[in-house]
């Protein structure tokens, strides 16, 4: 576990992408959470208040409706009872009319009953002790008497009343399943027909029940209605479990003894705020997803650039110098890539140069190796020849071999690559002696050397090839003048070797310094070699240059730094 978190810390949190995602998330989440929670708090407060007011109102409407219906029926029954208890107003001489006046009386009374009907009244009937009734002839009294509630009616005392729900299946015509609310009121009269009679007022309860249905369906309310005897007359089907957190309204109708009990589960009561909360959370979740996607979308090109830079660097470090990064953008990453490309190119050039130098050095070494074939044998032989010449008195031969040995000695010495200039000049003296013996006093040598230059270092055997070139190519039978001048310039030395021989044309001069024309015949290799060795030792800004005027003169000029 520890390892894992560590890994995550090490790995994920280091990646720019993760950092960006986190950054985006934090930037998006803070205001979102803040505003979301704030707006949730505020709006749920308002909505809850409104919704709760609305629920209060809806519930109070039910109370109101029920009370209104009761009130209405009660007033009607009271009024009719009042009327019936005044013997001067109503004359019902015969219970079942048989005579003209009887019919007229009852018709008038029935008109009186009908006049109490309002829009929702289903029926108003006066039912006598024997089961005859007044009111429209829709009522099937036998079916009414069979209804369970009618048993209670018979035990009603004066002043009591019964209110309850039942269906319209006691009517001859019309729908049988309409719900109605009925009120039975015993008539307080002891006169003949009216003794023990009961007034039945019926009101359409469909609207009431549709309202109850609305409360049940829309507000998830459980409604219980109890009548005066504490009997449940209506109870919502499939009620939810009663919880102590439920929001409860109770109302008691004092006049009728009814109780109304409405219960709404808390979750529904605060449903609207739950909805807002849900939406807020959904919005936050959505934002998180959006932010993540955006972060990935934005960070992928960036990190891809960095990644490709990284992998390119790795390749370069593994030695692949042809690596180039495609440049995709003009931003900092693009510039970085561009600079990287330039850098890789420079490294590549540098390495090529170094390897070339190394190769040339090796070649020179090989060549030198070639010359080194047993120099001792050569020197011993030359020494014995010199001795023989001395013994036989051939002074000239002896001198020639001596100078030759000195020259060769220098030539074949590989101990120090750089030697002081004076030492090189000494070797040249020997060389010139050899030439003098060979050609006789035919040439003139003038040496103009600044004394301070004598101790500066110069590659071994830098001058002899040039002299050789003069004797072999510029002079005819060794005739001519050679001038050597070495001057100290600020920071470097300049050596000029001038002859007054045939001179060279441009082509020849180029050939002398061109590595591709170092022919097998050996000509020119020396000059090129000199140039190369100076460059190898001191760098390309130094080296050898040739100037010549054909038929007049040619001069070699060497520039090299002051080293000691």
């Amino acid at each position, binding site marked *: 576990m520890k390892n894992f978190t560590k890994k995550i810390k090490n790995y994920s949190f280091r990646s720019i992408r993760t950092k960006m995602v986190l950054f985006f998330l934090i930037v998006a989440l803070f205001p979102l959470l803040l505003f979301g929670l704030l707006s949730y708090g505020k709006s749920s407060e308002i909505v809850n208040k409104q919704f709760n007011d609305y629920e209060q109102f809806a519930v109070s409407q039910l109370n109101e409706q029920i009370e209104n219906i009761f009130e209405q029926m009660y007033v009607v029954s009271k009024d009719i009872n009042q009327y019936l208890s005044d013997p001067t107003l109503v004359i019902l001489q015969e219970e079942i*009319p*048989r*005579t*003209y*006046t*009887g*019919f*007229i009386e009852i*018709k*008038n009374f029935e008109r009186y009953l*009908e006049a109490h*009907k*309002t*829009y929702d*009244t*289903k029926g108003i009937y006066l039912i006598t002790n024997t*089961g*005859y*009734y007044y009111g*429209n*002839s*829709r009522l*099937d*009294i*036998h079916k009414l008497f069979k209804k369970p509630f009618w048993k209670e009616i018979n035990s009603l005392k004066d002043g009591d009343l019964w209110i309850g729900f039942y269906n319209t299946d006691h*009517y*001859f*015509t*019309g*729908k049988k399943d309409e719900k109605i609310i009925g009120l039975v009121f015993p008539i307080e009269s002891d006169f003949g027909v009216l003794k023990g009679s009961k007034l039945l007022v019926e009101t359409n309860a469909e609207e009431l029940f549709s309202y109850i249905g609305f409360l049940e369906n829309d507000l998830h309310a459980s409604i219980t209605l109890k009548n005066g005897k504490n009997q449940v007359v209506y109870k919502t089907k499939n009620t939810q479990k009663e919880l102590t957190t439920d929001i409860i309204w109770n109302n008691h109708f004092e006049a009728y003894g009814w109780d109304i009990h409405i219960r709404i589960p808390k979750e529904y009561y605060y449903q609207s705020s739950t909805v807002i909360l849900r939406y807020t959370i959904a919005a936050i979740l959505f934002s998180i997803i959006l932010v993540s996607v955006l972060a990935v979308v934005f960070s992928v090109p960036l990190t891809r650039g960095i990644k490709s830079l990284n992998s390119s660097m790795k390749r370069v470090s593994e030695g692949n110098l042809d690596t180039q990064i495609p440049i995709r953008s003009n931003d900092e990453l693009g510039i970085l890539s561009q600079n990287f490309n330039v850098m890789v190119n420079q490294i590549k050039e540098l390495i090529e140069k170094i390897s070339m130098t190394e190769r040339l050095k090796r070649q020179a070494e090989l060549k030198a190796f070639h010359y080194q074939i047993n120099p001792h044998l050569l020197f011993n032989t030359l020494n014995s020849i010199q001795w023989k010449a001395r013994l036989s008195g051939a002074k000239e031969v002896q001198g020639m071999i001596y100078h030759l040995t000195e020259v060769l000695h220098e030539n074949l010495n590989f101990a120090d690559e750089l030697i002081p200039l004076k030492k090189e000049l000494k070797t040249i003296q020997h060389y010139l002696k050899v030439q003098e013996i060979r050609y006789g006093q035919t040439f003139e040598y003038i040496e103009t050397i600044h004394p301070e230059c004598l101790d500066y270092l110069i590659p071994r055997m830098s001058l002899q090839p040039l002299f050789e070139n003069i004797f072999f190519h510029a002079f005819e039978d060794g005739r001519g003048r050679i001038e050597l001048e070495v001057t100290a310039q600020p920071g470097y030395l300049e050596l000029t070797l001038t002859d007054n021989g045939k001179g060279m044309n441009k082509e020849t001069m180029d050939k002398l310094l061109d590595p591709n024309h170092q022919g097998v015949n050996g000509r020119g290799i020396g000059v090129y070699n000199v140039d190369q060795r100076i460059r190898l030792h001191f760098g390309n800004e130094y080296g050898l240059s040739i100037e010549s005027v054909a038929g007049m003169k040619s001069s070699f000029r060497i520039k090299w730094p002051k080293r000691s």
Partner: protein
Amino acid sequence: MSKFRITVLALILVVMAACSDQQSNSRAEQIRKETNEIIVLRFATWDSGEALEIQEAIAKKFEEKHPFIKVQLEAYGDEFDQKLAAAFGAKNPPDVMYMWNFPAYFQSLEPLENFIRRDPAIDLNDFYQGLFNYSTMYRELYGMPAGFTTRVIYYNKDLFDAAGIPYPKDGWTWDDFRSVAKKLTNPATRQFGFGVRPEPDTFDLQGIVWSNGSSFISEDGKKIDSYMNSPETIESIKMFADMVKEKSAVLVGGKNQQSGEEFFKKGKIAMWESGIWPLEKFKKAKVNFGTVEMPAFNGKPVRGIISSSAISIAKDSKNKDVAWEFVKFFSSPEAIKMRTADLPVRISMVKELQTDQDPLMGPFYKMLERANATPAYLLTKNWDEINRNLSSAINAIMLEQDAEELLNNAVIDSEKFIGQ
């Protein structure tokens, strides 16, 4: 956007005008153009059960033809009068309603004259002309005939066969009726020849009184003495009480009594006098029955009474043009064809469907031809008050009390309501 909508609307109107008759290019369509929203049309009816279902179907068909109208059917049932009165009182009546009691309501109804004049497509001559009497008040037409029925005698063929009596034929007399009834009575099995309502609607009795050459009120509506209590009136009402007295008829359909239709269905009465209403019920109950014209009084022509229903527009309706469209559709051949619980009100429909050739339906149309008198309630505005006395008298007569004295009393008590 609104320009686009107007263009589309204009196009629709042009197309409609091009390919439809005048009906759809009517004022109602113009209203549609003006409001461009659903119009709710309230339609109140007293029907219930099957008849109500038919009306729902007609309303639906109408909605299909006029998608911008929603018909809201309000079935008041038995509380029709009570609810309609309340609605008119509250100035919030249904736009369209069934109507029969024109004297009570005509002041709240819209005269149809203007609509008819504007709508030449509606052919008033195709309607049975007698029906217009019932929805005309002071020469103004307030309702389009929607349905009607005359009254006939239903007879139970099985009971006739069992007694070996030939089925009654048109042109029979009340004497024939009474002798047949007597023969069909068997007190031992509690079977009677006829059922008498103890508290009949005086309206229904008028056909019989007319057939005896009398009526309840003079034709000018100014006199009831020697009409309501004339010997012919007395005779025609007393006749039923006499039948009950001699036990060839039984009282049915009073308070806490089974209705005559129940008696007839069970074969407890052999003959029953009624309109078209119970016909389907009898068929459904598989009663083997026939119908026949009302009997005649000796040497006098039979005359019939029509119970008609019309369809009217409330004066306070806010959508009278749409309401008229509905009224027109309700009395169109298409709707009439759907209304199988009523008799067709259009002559062309009767001919097309050959309703009058149906042996059970034929007598209704024969009675229609005999219906040319105006019922009392259309002749005086105080008929309700007069009728209370008259029906009290008739109720008492049915309970075998002296008919002449009772009707004289009723006339005396009602004189104060006449000529006011």
